């Protein structure tokens, strides 16, 4: 192996050792220890509590139902909007992925303002019918499933849509010419080809739902889930309980990952590489169907935008002007003035922006090390590793993304909460660096994935051509590889950056009071009933995220 590769390997392994391997092993080790001896006692004790078992069942049940609901909503919408053309289609299609970029905490807050028992809808109905009490309360299973479906259906919508675009139209035509009816074509030709997309969507939805924290915290009611249990156990200082539950949550998440991926492996099709034209969207000509489709498009578009619109509205509401009225009665810029000019309030922007930027840039730099090792080099360059090592490496990189944020935060906090063997006397917990470190770990897989995709698209002949023209390795990297992959890599970095900006799940476990991120500020404003300020924070966050996503989209186009 060349010296250069050895340096990259050392950097990669050090980060994985400190960030992934050690903290996770530490947590597992802690959960298996009591009074200095190895034992399963913690598990026996924790798993014998009915409240813990209930949390486990709730988490899994919530995730399963979330997957089903998201599929029921997302898949038909994908078929409707991908295969047919009608007025209103574009409006919805442009908004469809909106919930994906909405930070969960901000979404939760918006839902409370809109659908909560003192929210706009409930107030409106109460005032309209002069009811004594609010018509409903946004609590428990129904509330959680409603919110989860809103935020996670795009996984199914986007992936099914992409899958449909890849399906070769001539296959369906061939089936029709062989005498298959429309429903047979759907069942026996289309759906089997969509299976990989559907499984990927189910996996993402399941994992996101298992990791969900904001919604169970704010309107889960008596539905206790694992992430919440871990949080409260840590809050009351029951570290053994927290650590043991963390391991249980990690095991469920990884088991789901393995289960889905194994199934996915059995259903892979080479369809994407075959020749053939994608199917054109068919215009819906029939009057009634056309009207119906248009109505569906408009209704769903409104449903998508309403929470964000509500947030914007409330952000302009004067404090105290929104008590029993349907809509706030008095509007002002005071909330924005407050979050931007009060030193304590404005500070959180600087905090979040700097911590997320540090994490994202570190992830970008590090991903170059990892991807150089991961991507199969040009045919001629000797391979650095055997395939199995590369697979292990990419698995290790993916773990922090697959694990719920709660697990990552708890494991880092536990492993580096006191002087230890890896950091000497340095204690990470309680310093500025804990959150950038956690953000880095959580979101670097996104950057690695983006860069890896860009690198793999690169024609190996370009590097070879540069070599045959006399360019040395460094020249080839700076003059050929880098100019071609940076748009994709920066787009991935921006994505990691904006997700880190709105991060709440892990932040709430390890943040330092002197260095609060935006999400913590939103939660505390909400607790103090400063609804306008909470909303204003949310709106500013959404604006920053939107700008970043537009830039990322433009970069993606450069790459294409």
């Amino acid at each position: 192996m060349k010296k250069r590769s050895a340096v990259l390997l050392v950097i990669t392994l050090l980060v994985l050792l400190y960030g992934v391997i050690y903290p996770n092993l530490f947590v597992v080790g802690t959960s298996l220890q009591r009074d200095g001896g190895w034992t399963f006692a913690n598990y026996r004790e924790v798993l014998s509590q009915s409240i813990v078992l209930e949390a486990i069942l709730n988490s899994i049940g919530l995730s399963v139902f979330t997957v089903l609901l998201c599929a029921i909503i997302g898949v038909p919408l994908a078929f409707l909007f991908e295969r047919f053309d009608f007025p209103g289609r574009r409006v919805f299609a442009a908004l469809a992925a909106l919930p994906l970029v909405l930070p969960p905490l901000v979404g939760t807050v918006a839902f409370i303002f809109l659908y909560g028992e003192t929210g706009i809808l409930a107030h409106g109905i109460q005032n309209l019918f002069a009811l004594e009490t609010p018509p409903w309360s946004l609590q428990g299973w129904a509330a959680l499933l409603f919110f989860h479906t809103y935020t996670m259906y795009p996984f199914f919508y986007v992936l099914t849509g992409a899958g449909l675009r890849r399906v070769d139209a001539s296959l369906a035509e061939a089936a029709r010419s062989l005498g298959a009816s429309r429903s047979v074509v759907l069942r026996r030709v289309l759906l089997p080809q969509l299976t990989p997309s559907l499984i990927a969507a189910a996996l993402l939805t399941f994992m996101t739902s298992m990791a969900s924290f904001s919604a169970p915290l704010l309107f889960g009611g008596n539905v206790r889930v694992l992430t919440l249990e871990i949080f409260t156990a840590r809050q009351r200082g029951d570290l053994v309980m927290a650590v043991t539950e963390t391991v249980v949550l990690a095991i469920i998440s990884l088991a789901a990952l393995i289960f889905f991926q194994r199934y996915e492996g059995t259903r892979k099709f080479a369809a994407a590489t075959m020749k053939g034209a994608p199917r054109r969207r068919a215009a819906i000509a029939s009057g009634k169907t056309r009207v119906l489709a248009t109505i569906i498009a408009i209704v769903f578009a409104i449903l998508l935008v309403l929470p964000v619109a509500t947030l914007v509205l409330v952000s302009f509401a004067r404090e105290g002007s929104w008590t029993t009225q349907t809509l706030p009665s008095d509007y002002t810029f005071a909330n924005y003035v407050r979050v931007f000019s009060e030193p304590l309030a404005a500070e959180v922007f600087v905090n979040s922006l700097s911590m997320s930027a540090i994490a994202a840039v570190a992830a970008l730099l590090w991903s170059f090390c990892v991807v150089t090792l991961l991507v199969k080099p040009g045919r001629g360059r000797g391979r650095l590793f055997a395939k199995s090592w590369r697979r292990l490496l990419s698995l290790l990189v993916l773990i922090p993304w697959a694990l719920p944020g709660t697990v990552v935060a708890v494991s880092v906090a536990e492993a580096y909460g006191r002087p230890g063997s890896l950091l000497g006397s340095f204690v990470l917990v309680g310093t500025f660096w804990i959150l950038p470190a956690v953000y880095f770990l959580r979101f670097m897989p996104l950057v690695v994935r983006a860069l890896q995709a860009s690198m793999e698209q690169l024609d190996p002949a370009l590097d070879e051509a540069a070599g045959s023209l006399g360019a040395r390795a460094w020249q080839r990297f700076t003059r050929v590889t880098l100019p071609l992959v940076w748009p994709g890599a920066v787009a991935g970095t921006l994505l990691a950056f904006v997700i880190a900006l709105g991060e709440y799940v892990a932040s709430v476990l390890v943040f330092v009071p002197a260095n609060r991120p935006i999400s913590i500020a939103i939660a505390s404003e909400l607790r103090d009933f400063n609804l306008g300020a909470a909303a204003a924070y949310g709106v500013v966050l959404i604006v920053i995220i939107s700008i970043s996503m537009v830039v990322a989209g433009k970069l993606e186009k450069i790459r294409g």
Partner: protein
Amino acid sequence: MPLLSLKNVSRSFGSTRAVADVSLDVEQGEFFGLLGPSGCGKTTTLRMIAGLEKPDSGTIQFQNADITNLPAERRGFGMVFQNYALFPHLNVFENVAFGLRARHASKAEMTKRVASALELVQLPGYGKRAVDELSGGQQQRVAIARAIAIQPALLLFDEPLSNLDVSLREETRSELRELVTRLGLTAVYVTHDQEEAYALCDRISVMVGGRLMQTGEPRELYEHPSDIAVARFLGRNNLIEAMRLSSSNTNEGEFKTLEGSHTLRLPIKHSELSPLNQPVFLAIRPEHVQIHTNGDSGTNSLRGNIREIVFAGATSTVRVDADGLLLEALVLQPDGLAVNQECTVVLPHDRLTLLQNQSG
């Protein structure tokens, strides 16, 4: 002394032997072809010459120096890739200047050499264009300009014309040959297209299944393939399975065909005598097979019956059944010939070739 010399070069990928024990010499100023069906190892051989692939065993010498382990960037060979591999983020000028920049050429030098390279490929003034604005043929020329701008010690081509359409291919082909000759360059050219190889190359090596089967001038390969695999690849040969008769001890070899039991004679060297009573293959090109209707009966003339006449423009193919031996003849004008007509087929004895390797 050859300019480039491969000695017993082998390369495997996993369990497949892509290149097996290949030895060849390329002379200074020669246009050398590597010809073979896809997957025969010709591209891998070229990539080993370029330094993009390392041989598992064997050596590569250039100007008498061992370059087997020299990385591509230090060989100074220009290479034209099948898909051109133009840098999409650089314009035409920067693409052509790439190798000069890597060599830290001065600005004046670079401008001059890029301009002259573009001139040579007939794209003067195209420097500012983006490469994706160019047509396939123009991209091709840029790729060639880029390779010759570094004044390569050896020019390597990996099927450079295969992405062009037919008429453009022939035009580019002759320009390419002319350019290489004018610059006095030595070239190694990989192709699966025999016509292209015949038209371009001074000498050609035919590779089949990772092995180098025969090296020679185009005409030699065409008329006298030494081996059944070569004869099959070079196409449209009549392959006749026959046994050498024990009675022949003169300079003429005497063979009996397995189908039709005809006796065929051909001149044969004693060193090439095949074992008795073992089937061997004889080959003859269809255009050398003569068909008469007037009952000629000289050496190697067989009685036959015309089975099929296929008109294909300039020539026609006539298929004849000579007592079970099926033969194909290429005739310019099938006048006076008709299906089911009796005829005489003549296989001129100096056109018949005995194939050496019978393994195919």
